[in-house]
């Protein structure tokens, strides 16, 4: 049932997320691109669950939980960085750059 098309859509969305991470410097937008990549992977899990049984959907539930936890901790880190640097632009956050 349109599994190949869903996988292609998932690949396209994942690559858009990768390009977003590589081209943007705003930390919040980079985080949202990571969420887009997680969503793309969820789509391929759902597509495969059509063929291999409902376990794929269980994995989607786990991925969503991890995404929520990651968003909470990541945004807390961003807020903490913003307090020190007054910016979320990653080109200004270069303390570990040699």
């Amino acid at each position: 049932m349109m599994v190949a098309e869903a996988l292609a859509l998932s690949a396209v969305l994942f690559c858009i997320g990768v390009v977003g991470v590589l081209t943007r410097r705003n930390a919040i937008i980079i985080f949202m691109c990571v969420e887009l990549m997680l969503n793309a992977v969820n789509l391929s899990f759902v597509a495969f669950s059509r063929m291999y049984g409902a376990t794929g959907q269980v994995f989607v539930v786990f991925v969503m939980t991890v995404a929520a936890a990651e968003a909470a901790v990541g945004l807390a880190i961003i807020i903490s960085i913003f307090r020190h640097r007054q910016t979320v632009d990653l080109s200004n956050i270069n303390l570990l750059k040699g």
Partner: protein
Amino acid sequence: MPNFFYQVNFYLFGLIAIASALTFVTRKSPVAAALWLVSTMFSLAAIYIMMDAHFVGAIQVLVYAGAIMVVFLFVVMLLNLGHPDERSDVRGKWGRIAAGLLGLALLAQIMTMARSQFPPSLLQSETAAVDNLRDLNAIGSVAKPLFTEHILAFELTSILLLVAIVGAVVLGKRRAHA
């Protein structure tokens, strides 16, 4: 073979998802980007429901488009990032070209990989999925493997969430002495 109406809807939501995702990565304002991402997530939810993953579709709307994106928008509001300055945060011309080429190369790789055959021994028949859905209904078909085969992972997830809550509070809290 799915009928024509199903196919049209599938491609429609797929196109909306891709177009919103492209608009999302090119917007300058974080608020506009977040709203375009919500649009992508809604069309993905529609596609999940069309692929008979009704529970996942509902969770997608509630958790992703509802909760996670609201947290993002709250942080944008809290840090007052809603009005981007004149300098765009998009990298320069060469950075963009390199990222685009890398993205296309990755896409080509994934597409080539998707041509390989699926292991047929694991394949379930089309009727098995429909029967499973009819016997256990939309939530039960997810809940049964979740609470039987994957119960350990489920319990570990609760620990993960606890750690995330504590971590977020500790990181977000102002230092008393600072």
